[in-house]
C-alpha cells in the first residue's frame, strides 16, 4: 500500500482534478442576498506529505501548545439540525519516555497528570445520551454508543495493565463525575482487531488495549460541567459560550467526548505531540426544540449568540454545510459569508460557508453573531449511508433468547468487509455453536473469528468477526443464549428495569464514490481530519448498534421476610402445641365458696375444726 503513494502521476492527477473543480465552482452564480460580492475560497495547499498522519498546525507563537475551535452546523433533511463542536489542543510534550512535565498552559492539568501517571498512549472516552439514527440523519462525524464508552491504549512500559486500568477508571470517574468505577473485569474486553490506534505509533500488541462500555450511564449537566472546565477558555469565551445544558440536553442526541492521542509534529515525524480533542455532537429536533418551524438560528438552538472568539485560540471557525443549497433553493443563510470551503468528509464532497470568528468583521455592527438558517423546501435526497446496522433480541420467556444483528450494505455493486465486535455480559450464556451468518438467504462464512468465552463473574464474552457484506444486501448474524440466575446480592436496586448489553461495534473501510483528498493540508478543518485516511477511494466508518435491554429472571425480594415470618409462626404453633401436650398437667380446683361459707371456714379454722 505504501508504494501506491510513490506514484507521482496519481498525485498530479488528483491535484488537477481539484484545480479544475475549484475553477468550475467559482463560476457558479452566488446565492441571493449577496449581490455582486465575490466569494473567496479558503487557502489550502496540497503538501508533499505522507498521508495517513495528521500533522500539527504551524505554531505562530513560541509557546508549545496551540488551540483551535470549530463548529459545524448541518441542516438535515428531516428538518432537524446537527451541530458538532470540536476543540483541539496540540501540545509538544512527549510522555513516552517518562518525562515529567510541571508547566501546563492550554492543555488541562488534570488530564496531563492522568496521562503521565498511568502511561497512557491514547485515551478515548465518550458520554452519549440518545441513539444516532443513521438512516434519517446520515453518518455522524464522530460516532459514539449510548451511555459511556472508554477505550485506552497504554504505553508498552506498563507492567500491570489490569491494575493500571482499574486505577485509571477510578480517577476518570472523579474527573468527569460519572460512575466509571463500575468498569471492572466483568465488562472490560481486549479487542484484537476492531480498535486500532488512531494516533501515530506502531505498537499494536493488543495486550495494552482495554475497551469497556457502560450502556446504563446517564449524561447530565454534572458531566458537562467538568468537560467545559477542561477547555482553555472554559465556557466564558469563544464557541463554548453556546454550551448551555438546558438546551443541549433537550435534544434528540447529545454526545460529548474526549480523545487524546499522539500525532506527528511535522512531516518527517521525528517527534510526536499530544493532541487533545474535545467533541460535542448534538441533534436538535424540529418539534421539541424547533417548535415545528423550519427555521434555525444559533439563538434558537443554544439560547446564546456569539460575541467573540476565544482569545487563546489560533483559529475559531463556524462551518455551515451548504452543499444542498448551491442555488439557494433549500435554505437561506444569513448573515451571508463570503468565505467558502470544500472538504471531502465521509465519502462525500461537501461545501461549507465559513465564518471566521477571529475576524472582527464577522460580528458586524451589533458585535454579536446569530446565524439564521431558514429552510424553504423539503425535497432533495440525502446521500444514503452505505453501512447501517440494527440489533434486537428475539425469543420469548425468561430462559432463552436469540440476539440478531443485521448489517445493511447499500452500495449498488461493491462489497466490502466489516469487522463486528460484540461484547456480551457473562449472565447471558451464548451458545456459539448456534452462531449463523446469512446474507441473501445463503450462509456467509466469516474470514476471521476471534472468540473469547466468558467466565462467570469474571469476564464477558468477546466475539470479533470479519464478514464480507455482498452488495445491496442485509447480513444477519444470530446467536442463541440462555439467561443465568444471579445471586440475590448481585441484583441492582431496580432489577425489573432489565439489564443492558452494550452496543455492537461495526468498523469498516467503506468504498467512497468521491476521491478522498488524502494529501493532508495544513489547514484542514478538524471534522474531516479525525480518522486517519490511508486510501483515496475509501473512508473509515464505525457504526454502533442499539444497546439491548434484557430481562433476567428476578426473584421476589420480599421472600426472605415472608419465609422468616411463616417459619417462625409454624415453629411457634407446632412446638408450642407439642410442648403443651407433653408438659401440661391438670389440677382439680374447688370452686370458691360464697361469703357466708368463707367466714364460717375462717371461724372453724380458728377452732381447729376441718372446714366445710
Amino acid at each position, binding site marked *: 500500500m505504501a508504494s501506491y503513494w510513490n506514484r507521482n502521476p496519481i498525485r498530479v492527477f488528483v491535484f488537477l482534478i481539484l484545480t479544475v473543480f475549484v475553477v468550475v465552482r467559482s463560476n457558479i452564480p452566488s446565492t441571493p442576498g449577496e449581490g455582486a460580492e465575490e466569494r473567496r475560497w479558503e487557502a489550502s495547499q496540497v503538501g508533499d506529505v505522507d498521508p495517513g498522519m495528521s500533522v500539527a498546525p504551524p505554531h505562530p507563537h513560541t509557546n508549545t501548545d496551540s488551540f483551535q475551535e470549530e463548529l459545524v452546523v448541518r441542516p438535515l433533511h428531516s428538518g432537524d439540525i446537527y451541530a458538532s463542536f470540536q476543540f483541539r489542543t496540540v501540545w509538544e510534550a512527549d510522555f513516552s519516555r517518562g518525562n515529567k512535565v510541571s508547566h501546563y498552559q492550554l492543555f488541562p492539568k488534570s488530564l496531563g497528570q492522568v496521562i503521565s501517571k498511568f502511561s497512557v498512549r491514547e485515551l478515548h472516552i465518550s458520554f452519549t445520551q440518545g441513539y444516532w439514527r443513521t438512516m434519517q440523519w446520515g453518518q455522524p462525524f464522530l460516532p459514539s454508543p449510548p451511555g459511556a464508552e472508554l477505550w485506552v491504549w497504554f504505553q508498552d512500559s506498563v507492567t500491570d495493565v489490569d491494575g493500571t486500568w482499574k486505577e485509571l477508571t477510578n480517577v476518570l*470517574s*472523579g474527573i468527569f*463525575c460519572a460512575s466509571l468505577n463500575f468498569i471492572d473485569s466483568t465488562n472490560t474486553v481486549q479487542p484484537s482487531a476492531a480498535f486500532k490506534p488512531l494516533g501515530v505509533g506502531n505498537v499494536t500488541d493488543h495486550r495494552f488495549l482495554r475497551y469497556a462500555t457502560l450502556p*446504563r450511564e446517564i449524561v*447530565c449537566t454534572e458531566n458537562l*460541567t467538568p468537560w467545559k472546565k477542561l477547555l482553555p477558555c472554559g465556557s466564558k469565551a469563544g464557541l463554548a459560550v453556546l454550551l448551555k445544558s438546558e438546551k443541549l*440536553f*433537550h435534544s434528540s442526541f447529545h454526545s460529548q467526548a474526549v480523545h487524546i492521542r499522539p500525532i506527528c509534529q511535522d512531516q518527517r515525524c521525528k517527534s510526536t505531540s499530544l493532541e487533545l480533542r474535545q467533541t460535542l455532537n448534538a441533534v436538535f429536533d424540529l418539534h421539541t426544540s424547533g417548535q415545528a418551524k423550519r427555521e434555525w438560528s444559533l439563538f434558537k438552538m443554544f439560547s446564546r449568540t456569539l460575541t467573540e472568539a476565544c482569545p487563546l485560540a489560533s483559529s475559531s471557525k463556524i462551518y455551515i454545510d451548504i452543499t444542498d443549497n448551491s442555488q439557494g433553493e433549500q435554505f437561506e443563510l444569513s448573515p451571508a459569508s463570503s468565505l467558502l470551503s470544500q472538504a471531502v468528509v465521509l465519502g462525500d464532497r461537501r461545501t461549507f460557508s465559513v465564518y471566521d470568528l477571529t475576524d472582527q468583521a464577522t460580528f458586524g455592527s451589533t458585535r454579536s453573531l446569530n446565524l439564521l438558517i431558514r429552510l424553504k423546501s423539503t425535497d432533495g435526497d440525502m446521500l444514503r449511508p452505505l453501512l447501517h446496522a440494527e440489533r434486537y433480541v428475539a425469543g420469548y420467556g425468561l430462559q432463552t433468547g436469540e440476539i440478531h444483528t443485521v448489517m445493511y450494505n447499500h452500495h449498488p455493486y461493491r462489497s466490502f468487509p466489516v469487522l463486528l465486535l460484540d461484547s456480551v455480559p457473562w449472565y447471558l450464556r451464548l451458545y456459539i455453536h448456534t452462531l449463523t451468518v446469512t446474507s441473501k438467504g445463503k450462509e456467509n462464512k466469516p474470514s476471521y473469528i476471534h472468540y473469547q468465552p466468558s467466565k462467570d463473574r469474571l469476564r464477558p464474552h468477546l466475539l470479533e468477526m470479519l464478514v464480507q457484506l455482498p452488495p445491496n444486501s442485509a447480513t444477519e448474524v444470530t446467536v442463541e443464549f440462555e439467561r443465568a440466575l444471579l445471586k440475590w446480592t448481585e441484583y441492582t*436496586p*431496580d432489577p425489573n428495569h432489565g439489564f443492558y448489553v452494550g452496543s455492537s461495534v461495526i468498523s469498516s473501510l467503506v468504498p467512497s464514490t468521491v476521491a478522498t483528498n488524502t494529501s493532508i493540508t495544513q489547514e484542514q478543518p478538524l471534522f474531516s481530519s479525525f480518522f486517519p485516511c490511508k486510501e483515496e477511494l475509501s473512508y473509515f466508518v464505525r457504526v454502533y448498534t442499539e444497546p439491548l435491554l434484557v430481562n433476567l429472571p428476578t426473584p421476589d425480594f420480599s421472600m426472605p421476610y415472608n419465609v422468616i415470618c411463616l417459619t417462625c409462626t409454624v415453629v411457634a404453633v407446632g412446638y408450642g402445641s407439642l410442648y403443651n401436650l407433653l408438659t401440661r398437667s391438670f389440677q382439680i380446683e374447688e370452686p370458691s365458696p360464697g361469703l357466708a361459707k368463707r367466714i364460717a371456714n375462717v371461724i372453724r379454722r380458728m377452732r381447729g375444726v376441718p372446714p366445710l
Partner: protein
Amino acid sequence: HRNLNGAGQFFSSGHTNNWAVLVCTSRFWFNYRHVANTLSVYRSVKRLGIPDSHIVLMLADDMACNHRNPKPATVFSHKNMELNVYGDDVEVDYRGYEVTVENFLRVLTGRLPPSTPRSKRLLSDDRSNILIYLTGHGGNGFLKFQDSEEISNVELADAFEQMWQKRRYNELLFIIDTCQGASMYERFYSPNLMALASSQVGEDSLSHQPDLAIGVHLMDRYTFYLLEFLEDIHPASKTNMNDLFKVCPKSQCVSTPGHRTDLFLRDPGSVLITDFFGSVRKIEITMETINLTDPIKQMEEK
C-alpha cells in the same frame, strides 16, 4: 497596632474549614422531591461559600435528565418553575447505584479504597465543621437507601463516634428530612453533635405541593421552608441556630420538627448559621509592615 483582644475573637468557634455531605437516598421518578431537597441545600451551601471540592453530593437517581422530565437538565423547587436548583454548575460525586449504605459510611469514616479520587472523599480534619443532610424515606430508627437496604440509627451513631475518635470533625450539624426523623438522632453519644429533624417519632413528614406540568411533588415541606430561610442568609449575616430551630413550625409543616443540642458544647444561640452552611473566613486587614524572617543562617558555616 495589633489588637490582642481581636486575636481572641478568631478562635472562638474553633473551626478553620467547612465540609458538607448531602445525601439523597431515594430512587425512582416519584421521589423527585428528595432530589430537589438535596439540591436546594447544595445550592444554599455553595452560594454561601463552600466550594465543590468540599462538598460530597450523593444523588441516588437522576431526575434532571430523566426521560420523564418535561424540562431536561432542570430540577425545580417551587411550582411555576421559579427556581431551578440544579443549575448550570453542579458536580455530583456519587450517583445512581453508587449511593449505598456502605459508601456513605465509608465516606464518613474515611475508609475508602486507595484509588478513590479526591472529589469522592471527605478529607476533613479536627478543625472542620461538617454539615450532614439526609433525605429520603425513613421509619422509626432507620433510613431506607434506594428501596433495597437500610441504615439504622445505631450504625449512624457509631459512625459519628468513629469520626470523633479519629478526630475527623470539630463540630457536626446533622439535618434529616424523612418520616419519623427524630428517631435517627436518638442514639447519638459523641460530643459536639447538633441534630435537627423534620418530624418526631410517630409522625410523617409531608411534601409541599405538586406541579401539574411535571406531575410529581416538588419538595418536602421542611426543606422548602428551610430553603426559604436560607435564601435570606448571606455570608455576613449573624443569624444563629435558635432561628434555625424555629423553621417550619407545626402550622406550616403539619409535623413537629425536633432538634437535639445536649451533646453540643457551645450554646446554640452563639452558633452562627454560617458556621455550618457557609465557608466564612475571618480576615483582618493590617497596615503594619512585618519583617517575615531573620536572615537564614548558612548550615555550612564551620
